[in-house]
């Protein structure tokens, strides 16, 4: 089972994350936790959640980076979850067959009834997308909300991952990156979407859209419309001005 599909699936479900619009509110992080601790298949536990050394398994995390120096520096909020790679070493190293990549849509999953909690797959993921659930004793990772996206009991608009549905800035997009005509693929093409750490050779499915270039002087420096004069000469307002000044 931990052998990869013979040839990559035609359908490649994944996320496209817009680093230009993400405001770093962590709403996706919270909704991910909320959905995945209540749904399929076991709770996503925390240890000591109200105490001093809080710890727990989360499937999506938002880092905040600074890039560049001084006035040219930018602050970028950077959400990160499993990228559902095409060459996932996390899958092939798994000794029990718990980790697998689905033939039909490329989603990488963990069968929690087989995982023995050895942690080797987390070592094999360059992106830090797998976290051990210390309460359940098995490895957890993003499922791309497999229990939402195919769930016919949900309204069609809700058949997207929880993080996508909750993002207030529309910085997260879900779709088939294997289809060059899908909305997500077009977005990637238009905005120059890219892979994280391509040099590691995992061929991630998820793509990141770079921050748009900063507006240059010609657009950022345009003059605002002039305001009305505070002490107008003549006319009705001039008369009121003179009258009030005299009082």
């Amino acid at each position, binding site marked *: 089972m931990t052998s*990869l599909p013979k040839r990559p699936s035609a359908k490649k479900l994944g996320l496209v994350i817009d680093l230009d619009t993400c405001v770093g509110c962590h709403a996706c992080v919270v909704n991910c936790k909320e959905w995945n601790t209540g749904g399929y298949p076991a709770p996503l536990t925390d240890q000591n959640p109200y105490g001093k050394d809080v710890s727990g*398994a989360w499937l999506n995390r938002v880092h905040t980076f600074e*890039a560049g120096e001084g006035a040219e520096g930018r602050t*970028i909020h950077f959400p990160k979850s499993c990228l559902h790679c095409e060459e996932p070493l996390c899958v092939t190293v798994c000794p029990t067959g718990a980790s697998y990549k689905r033939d039909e849509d490329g989603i990488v999953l963990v069968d929690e009834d087989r995982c*023995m909690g*050895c942690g080797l797959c987390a070592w094999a993921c*360059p992106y*830090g997308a797998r976290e051990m659930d210390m309460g359940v004793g098995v490895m957890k990772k993003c499922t791309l909300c497999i229990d939402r996206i195919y769930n016919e009991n949900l309204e069609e608009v809700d058949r997207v991952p929880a993080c996508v549905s909750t993002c207030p800035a529309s910085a997260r997009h879900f779709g088939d990156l294997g289809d060059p005509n899908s909305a997500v693929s077009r977005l990637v093409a238009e905005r120059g979407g890219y892979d994280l750490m391509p040099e*590691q050779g995992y061929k991630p499915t998820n793509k990141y859209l770079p921050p748009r270039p900063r507006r240059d002087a010609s657009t950022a420096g345009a003059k605002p419309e002039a305001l009305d004069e505070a002490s107008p000469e003549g006319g009705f307002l001039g008369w009121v001005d003179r009258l009030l000044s005299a009082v």
Partner: protein
Amino acid sequence: MHPAYSVIFFTTASGAGFGLLALLGVLGPLRLLPADRWFGLSALFLAFALAVGGLLSSTLHLKSPARARFAFSQWRSSWLSREGVASIATMAIAGVFAIGWVFFEATAGWWAAAGLLAALGALLTVFSTGKIYAVLKPIRQWHDPLVVPVYLLFALATGAVWLDAVVAVLAGGSVAVGLGTIIVVIGAWGTKVAYWKRIDQGRSPSTPESATGLGSLGQVRLLMAPHTEENYLQREMGYRVARKHTAKLRVVAGFFGLAVPVFLILAGWLLPTGAAAVCAVLAALFVSLGVVIERWLFFAEARHTVTLYYGDRVG
């Protein structure tokens, strides 16, 4: 990488056990060791105890050890699974070999075939252990062509010192075994020094810029971590305590693992049998201590690319 003590103990002990088994499986049939039943029993028992003890301790770091039975299923893709399968098969074959040696004092013919097969299996097991680490691309210090040879050589070196100790205690010692032991021990540490050189000079292809893809904006720095307390990833992969003592610890490992035991084995040649036996056993213990430190460093010096997302500059 965080050094898990159960894994360090496991690789050291089972490495020594399988190394000893490999030597017994080859040297027994070649009649280079006493065919005597008590010698066979003691040496093979020691090999089994080290190998099984190590394998059992490796289950201590599992979070759901009851499911370890599934770990034999994925030998098509996983080196950890292959290690499990190889170790069990090796023990079964070695069991047959042991029956010949212990019950019939026979190591020739079919018994010899079993011995040689067990030796091959033992080497394959250790090879798989090394491969588990060597395939992990995100950890540059492990994804290195010398990792597997180092594992194999240390298994043979620790196996050899234990063999030398058993020969010294039960058969009055053997200069040939002692000399062979010194050669593999030196070979193992020599390869380790070459490995240390390689990892000191190497560089990870990944940087915070490639990890975020934001390099075109300039140097990338972590401004805010995603969480206030350490998480599993940082506990498991962000270990840095030993790094500042690396150079000293390498010398300490070499001192206990190479200098002291070689001196003890040489001294044993000049001493009467009883004292020589004590020296040989001490040598085996010192090599093991040196290898435990070496293994600990193997973890502590290794860096995972995930730390790039948590503010490290080099992966």
